């Protein structure tokens, strides 16, 4: 594994810069977007109250000072006190993370378990009825808005058939519909990409050679095709995983799932700067870690990546 250390170091440096940029942008954008104090006080509160609360939250200080304080604290993992919850922001976000992981992992697993076989079968049985039906469905999954899929599932599966709970987070049953809703887009994307990646490899010369040598079709697909088709599949899968963890806002809202997506959106409405900064930071960390892992997996799958 020659060159692994410089490779790791450059990746880590890039990750750190990305994190700094993300947190700075969030800091600036949140402060441009408006004042949280009018949202916290009753509508008839006097001006003196506004001044008091602003001072209490440290918002009366100049922006550069606020920024310096913010950066200093972030280094220590301190994102400040939530304006809305009146608890350390990092603790509030930590409370929401398990639900996010649970939903993200379930959606991801579901997407993979369905999408990979479907994509492979579609490629192998190209233009068959199975291929056309599954790819048609995938198109629907990719284009239907999450909100629509969620409400549809609630109405049909929960209300009409009475099979699963409509919302909430209680037991595995309540995880099924949100995971399906959240995973629908990823499932469709991965299935379509798997199909095209596998198709591409199936047309390659070495596959024709393998077939000519009399290798069974099953072995051709499993041994010769999949490993070579894996790089694009891993890429899109990794990206989708990041999105599933950070971008579940709509699903979480429809199913009242207490994850960080919903927390972030609520906090934006509440102008709860510390929570927004913390959720964005945590999401960015997750995304960067996943990307980092994908890079490592590339290295394992394709020695050319390692040496370059």
């Amino acid at each position: 594994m020659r060159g692994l250390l410089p490779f790791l170091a450059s990746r880590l440096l890039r990750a750190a810069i990305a994190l700094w940029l993300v947190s700075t942008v969030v800091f600036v954008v949140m402060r441009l977007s408006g004042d949280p104090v009018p949202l916290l006080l009753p509508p008839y509160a006097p001006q003196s109250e506004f001044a008091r609360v602003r001072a209490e939250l440290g918002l009366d200080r100049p922006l550069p000072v606020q920024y310096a304080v913010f950066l200093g604290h972030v280094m220590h993992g301190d994102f400040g006190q939530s304006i809305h919850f009146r608890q350390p922001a990092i603790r509030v976000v930590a409370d929401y993370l398990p639900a996010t992981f649970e939903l993200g992992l379930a959606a991801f697993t579901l997407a993979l378990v369905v999408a990979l076989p479907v994509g492979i079968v579609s490629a192998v049985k190209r233009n068959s009825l199975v291929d056309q039906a599954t790819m048609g469905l995938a198109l629907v999954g990719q284009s239907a808005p999450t909100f629509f899929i969620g409400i549809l599932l609630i109405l049909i599966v929960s209300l009409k058939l009475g099979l699963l709970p409509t919302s909430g987070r209680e037991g595995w049953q309540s995880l099924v519909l949100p995971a399906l809703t959240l995973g629908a887009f990823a499932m469709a994307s991965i299935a379509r990409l798997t199909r095209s990646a596998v198709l591409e490899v199936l047309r390659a010369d070495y596959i024709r050679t393998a077939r000519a040598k009399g290798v069974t079709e099953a072995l051709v697909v499993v041994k010769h095709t999949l490993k070579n088709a894996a790089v694009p599949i891993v890429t899109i899968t990794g990206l989708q995983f990041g999105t599933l963890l950070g971008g579940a806002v709509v699903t979480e809202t429809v199913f009242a799932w207490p994850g960080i997506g919903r927390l972030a959106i609520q906090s934006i409405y509440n102008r709860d700067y510390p929570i927004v900064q913390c959720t964005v930071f945590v999401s960015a960390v997750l995304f960067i870690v996943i990307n980092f892992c994908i890079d490592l997996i590339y290295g394992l799958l394709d020695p050319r990546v390692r040496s370059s």
Partner: protein
Amino acid sequence: MREMTRRDVLKITAAGAAAALPGLPATVRAQTTQKRELVVAQGGDIASLDPHLSTSSNDIRISFNIFDNLTSRRPDGKLAPGLATEWKLQGQTAWVFKLRSGVKWHNGDPFTSADVKFSIDRSLDTSLKGNRVTTVLPMVERVETPDPATAVIHTKKPDPLLPARLGFYGGQMVPKKYVESVGPDVFNQKPVGTGPVRFVSWTKDDKIVLEASPDYWGGRVDFDRLIVRALPEMAPRVAALLKGEVDLITQVPPDQGERIKGNAGTAVNGALYGGLYVLAVNSKQPPLGNPLVKQALSLAIDRDAIIKELWRGRGVAPNSMIAKGDNHFDASLPPLAFNPNEAKARLKKAGYKGEEIVIETTAGYMAGDKPMSEAIQAMWRDVGVNAKVEVFEYSVRAQKNRDKTFKGLWWSDPTSTLRDPDGMMWRLLGPGAPQDYWRHAEFDELGNAARFSVDEKFRGDAYRKMTQIFLEHLPWIPVIQPYEDYGLQKYVEWTPDPLQQLEIRRFNFKFRRA
């Protein structure tokens, strides 16, 4: 004794059959229950449990049940005894409250007048981090505790509404000993009150769990556990009710009511909102300074059409700036009139030259705000007003509210927190108040005199005169007093509250048992 009707026979037969045949459809059995757990779903999670840290409706639905007030505002609008059994005014500025004996906090400590003093002082304490109720009891000068069962509250000026103020947010009683020993943070996470339910757990953005306080002075509630879930989206909230996962849901819009009523096991129950939906007016912005223009705008609004078409009949047309159900509401006044020809005549008389008149609205901060704006824009255009609707985000509205920079008209849903004109119209339209865009010397004089008078007849006369001035100048154009609707299972016997509280005490909540 009432004679038995055919319907009764059917009911009894159905109930008997349902009991005998568990395989029967749930709809028939749904009219009664054996549940020991009440599950409520509201539109958002709570922010804090410490009652001094919040005034939001999601929070007070919980905090008014963990805590008690000295006085209790009932769903029928009347003020009833709470932790105080009686109160009377001594002289002009001293209110004497006799406290209920034998009341205990959820941790077993006795409730005394020291807690009353501590609670009121704390509500006024600007050094308490996050205190959001410092303006609720501004007239209080000091609290005396001559003995453990008596609290005397002295006000700086006569305050006829002190008992009413103590019955709403900011007036919840908190335990002195516990708060002092554990500090504000722990108190906010593990609150201790005297109310009918005590705190068990809170999972953020998911649910809060409470349990019945067995020795509650008002009688043990009709369930063992209360679970309040946060279901932000309307469609899933309704679905959860229809499927029977929850017993009661808040904030049901008129168009969803039909669906809930169409289902055999569920019903809709509403309370006339204790407040009004009004278009507040920036009278400093020409041509809105001209009373004739404002009168024309009001006359051009077909309130009956709005109520019928947009609210499916779930509302009433206001007749003034005082909400129906409040003190000094004048039932003899007719609802605000719709007369497009008269509107045109007054615009002409005012010399209106087609200046742009802007309605600023959010899309959903208030139920129906955007559709109502669009309907009113069309009605105004029909009489020749150059009306425009601008949509903005809720936080922008909050900012403009604070800076007083609305362009023309904007929606406001003033809540009548004291069920009295002083607690609604005067706190918003009075001099220096948040919606102070118009002044009138006589109006101001009457409003101030009524605030500080303990003579209800004098106050009544003052508000009558103020109503006349109001109807001429229209600093607000009242549009509707809507119903606040709730969806519930038919086995729930419960009366909704006009001020958005969730009153689940024994006198107001019961499961219908088989």
